[in-house]
């Protein structure tokens, strides 16, 4: 065996690892993406968590998936459907097969397809492949559980511990299938289990066994695929999720500004990992307070900002509802604050683990009174770093709360992250009140150019002042109900936001002669980009303008939007960005593509819908 393998060159491939929540599919997927990224492939990953907290083992609702998309050239999404599906049990095959491309290779652990397993997975007969219409030739069926036990028989481990290594056998098989260098995986495991060398050793042994199994017995069934790397950007990389990148962005911004980073937060899916991440880094002086509720999370961050820190609060949509009054307090007091909204499916508790873009109008308008607030939406897992940095810089330099929007898809997805060099990032200069203004300073004196008031941090002699939620005199800050003053202050607060400089909207693709301009915002960037690439490959003239800065809009937004014959605004809501743009751009009447499924866009569906618009 193993004499003559057909090596197939592929431009990209998606692998989906699926199994019970406890089967370690995330880890297997992570290692595979790291191994691929290390050789320079482009990667994009997406975890699909079960909605149940702890569904019964082997049940349909307890299946967890992790999709890894690797490409020789740039990949923008985790891929619509997979080329290889790993199903560690019957329930995984049942629920995940729909994510497999026709002709995809399927790896199953036959030891988890016994009568009881099939029953839990609601198969009617023992011919599960037949029931699902799967061609057995495409299936790499192996008794993974038994082989793992055999492989570790001499290890002295108990059966439960052995079975935790099943994911590594599957990983070994996949590594064989894609001709990956196992040493990278071994090093990863040695690092991860540095304190438990026995565990590392067992996992390494099982990966090797999985690899050898593929090599020895299945060369006749499957091809070996190779994904060469093109357009490498040399540098040092790490794998990062959106939530981690967001946390890193806040840390970097605080360090650049020379301020303490304070996070007030309350656990909420899918934002909690930001709290987890920041809580780890006390050695950088990061202060995190897990508050009694969402309100206190935001309110305490406002208090921290008043006291001279970079105040941040992190949450998801339902938390924004609760924080809105404290956010408004930061609006009227004109204090820096970053509010992170990792969007999930709504309304109310909605779909906590799923992704949507349905909070945009809430971010823009969800507060009482005239309450302008900048809104920034991160476009990818790695962009979360830059977006968080930009949000913090904007908040600190413009003395305003800023909403940073991500979503469950971007937050949980990961990609290769080129290590940033903080020295190359722009300086952050909060408008501290100059010492020479002592005596003549008042809290609402503004820089005439930017409209930003000065920041006097408690502890400075001679700058004592009071801020508050009541309307204040436009200079002294004393409580004022004067009608002219209120009108003036309303305008001043709005103009301050309008004056914020944001980068121009970039047009990608056929920017000069596109028949269709695709418009989106935030986390759908990858899918819209992939759809544009596909359409252009089909010979269509298509461009993409993707918004990251939503309030204020880029200065060239109207010009871009009015330049093209046809424009489609595609978003995972009922048309919130389209509505905002129509409000801001005269006579702008776009086509719309709206989908609210709690799942990422599917590129093929986008291509079909956009083609229909082009052909109209």
């Amino acid at each position, binding site marked *: 065996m193993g004499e003559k393998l057909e090596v197939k060159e592929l431009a990209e491939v998606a692998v989906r690892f699926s199994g019970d929540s406890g089967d370690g599919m995330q880890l297997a997927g992570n290692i595979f993406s790291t191994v691929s990224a290390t050789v*320079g492939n482009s990667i994009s990953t997406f975890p699909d968590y079960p909605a149940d907290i702890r569904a019964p083992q082997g049940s349909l609702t307890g299946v967890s998936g992790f999709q890894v998309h690797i490409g020789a050239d740039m990949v923008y999404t985790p891929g619509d459907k997979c080329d290889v599906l790993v199903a560690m049990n019957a329930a995984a095959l049942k629920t995940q097969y729909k994510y497999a491309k026709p002709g995809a290779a399927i790896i199953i652990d036959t030891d988890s397809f016994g009568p009881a397993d099939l029953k839990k997975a609601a198969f009617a007969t023992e011919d599960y492949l037949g029931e699902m219409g799967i061609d057995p030739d495409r299936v790499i069926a192996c008794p993974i559980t038994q082989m793992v036990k055999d492989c570790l028989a001499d290890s002295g481990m108990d059966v439960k511990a052995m079975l935790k290594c099943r994911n590594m056998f599957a990983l070994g098989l996949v590594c064989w299938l894609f001709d990956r260098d196992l040493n*990278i995986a071994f090093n*990863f495991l040695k*690092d991860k289990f540095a304190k438990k060398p026995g565990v590392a050793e067992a996992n390494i042994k099982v990966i090797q066994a999985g690899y050898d199994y593929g090599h020895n017995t299945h060369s006749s069934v499957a091809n070996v695929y190779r994904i060469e790397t093109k357009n*490498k950007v*040399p*540098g*040092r*990389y*790490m*794998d*990062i999720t959106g939530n981690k990148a967001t946390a*890193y962005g806040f*840390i970097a911004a605080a*360090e650049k500004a020379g301020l*303490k980073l*304070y996070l*007030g937060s309350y656990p909420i899916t899918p934002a909690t990992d930001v709290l987890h991440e920041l809580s780890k*880094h*006390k*050695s*950088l*002086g990061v*202060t995190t307070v897990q*508050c*009694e*509720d969402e*309100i*206190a999370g935001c*309110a*305490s*961050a*406002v*208090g*921290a*900002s*008043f*006291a*001279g*820190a970079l*105040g941040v609060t992190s949450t998801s949509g339902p938390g924004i509802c609760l924080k809105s*009054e*404290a956010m*408004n*307090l930061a609006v009227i*007091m004109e204090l820096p604050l970053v509010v992170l909204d990792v969007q999930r499916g709504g309304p109310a508790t909605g779909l906590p683990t799923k992704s949507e873009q349905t909070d945009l109008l809430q971010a823009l308008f969800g507060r009482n009174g005239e309450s302008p607030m900048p809104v920034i939406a991160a476009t990818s897992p790695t962009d979360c770093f830059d977006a968080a940095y930009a949000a913090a810089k904007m908040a600190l330099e413009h003395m305003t709360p800023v909403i940073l929007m991500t979503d469950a898809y971007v937050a949980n997805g990961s990609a290769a992250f080129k*290590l940033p*060099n903080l020295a190359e990032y722009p300086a952050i200069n909060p408008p501290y009140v100059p010492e020479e203004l002592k005596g003549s300073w008042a809290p609402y004196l503004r820089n005439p150019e930017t409209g930003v008031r000065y920041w006097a941090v*408690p*502890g400075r*002699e001679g*700058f*004592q*002042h*009071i*801020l*508050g*939620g009541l309307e204040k005199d436009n200079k002294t800050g*004393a*409580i004022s109900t004067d009608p002219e003053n209120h009108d003036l202050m309303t305008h001043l607060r709005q103009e301050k936001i309008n004056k914020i400089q944001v980068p121009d909207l970039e047009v990608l693709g056929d920017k000069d002669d596109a028949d269709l301009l695709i418009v989106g915002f935030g986390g759908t960037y990858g899918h819209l980009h992939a759809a544009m690439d596909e359409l252009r490959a089909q010979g269509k003239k298509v461009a993409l303008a993707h918004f990251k800065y939503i309030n204020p809009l880029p200065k060239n937004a109207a010009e871009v939007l009015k330049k093209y014959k046809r424009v489609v605004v595609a978003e995972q809501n009922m048309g919130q960005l389209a509505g905002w743009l129509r409000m801001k751009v005269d006579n702008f009447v776009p086509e719309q593509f709206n989908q609210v499924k709690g799942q990422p866009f599917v590129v093929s569906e986008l291509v079909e819908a956009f083609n229909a618009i082009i052909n109209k």
Partner: protein
Amino acid sequence: MAYTVQDYKKGQPRWCPGCGDHFFLASLHKAMAEIGVEPWNTAVISGIGCSSRLPHYMATYGMNTIHGRAAAIATGCKVANPDLTVWQVSGDGDGLAIGGNHFIHANRRNINLNMILLNNRIYGLTKGQYSPTSPRGFVSKSSPYGTVEDPFRPAELCFGARGHFFARAVATDAPGTVEILKAAYNHKGAAVCEILQNCVIFNNGTHDAVYSKEGRAKNAIYVQHGKPLIFGENNEFGLMQEGFGLKVVKIGENGITEKDILVHDAHCEDNTLQLKLALMGNGDGFPVALGVIRDVDAPTYDDCVTAQIEEVKAQKKYHNFAELLETNDIWEVK
């Protein structure tokens, strides 16, 4: 440098003539001057309500925030900048109704805040609705037939939330108020000061029994740590333990001498008797306890946060962003 009352005063208070807030404000100015923390190292943070206007009359840093959130905002302020002395000022509605959650959690965490609760048992700013401290049956604009709910007794909430400091004063009693404010400042941790005060417009007379000096002589007891719990116009009464409760005794009667009287222990970890003192005076023949009822040392949240940061800094090898990046699994693309 020594400070005077003038160094903490600002502006002209706009409360109704005779409002308890005027009395309290004067005592707070006085207490701050005696404590001597610089006005620029002091922050006074309030929520919403008549009494929450107070920071406007302070020459310190201050915030008059939103309804109910003063304790949460003060928490962030203190944790982010532990060098500041933070006073949090709320009324009974702001602190115990809409802000009840933050009140209990600030006590539980033991944030080093001086938490002032100005209790007039009414909503004044919204013009006369019952509050969570209004007694059962209380008639107000929103309860024309009387309330059908029991009030909070602030000490119970504080103790129930594992609070380590609780003191009480009557607004019109300047020395008594100044004394507990100074004690609150000196206590490291959340320090609740309940100030009994009158609302001349919507709840006039609510604290009449103890509002005048004469009333207090008859109906109040000034508790002092280490001193026997004696009260009365001629110090003729005392408190003794009886079964699971307290009783009022007359010194000299039934062979009772001053030695038999219960000695106040504000530093006792077990709050059982302190709570009994705090709950006295509800029309049951007991006097209203004034002064520092509970004052027990405990680690403060803000100190622990700082200490943990220092500890982790010493343990971990990464101390800036560039070093943080290096803690990840990194690969190089050449």
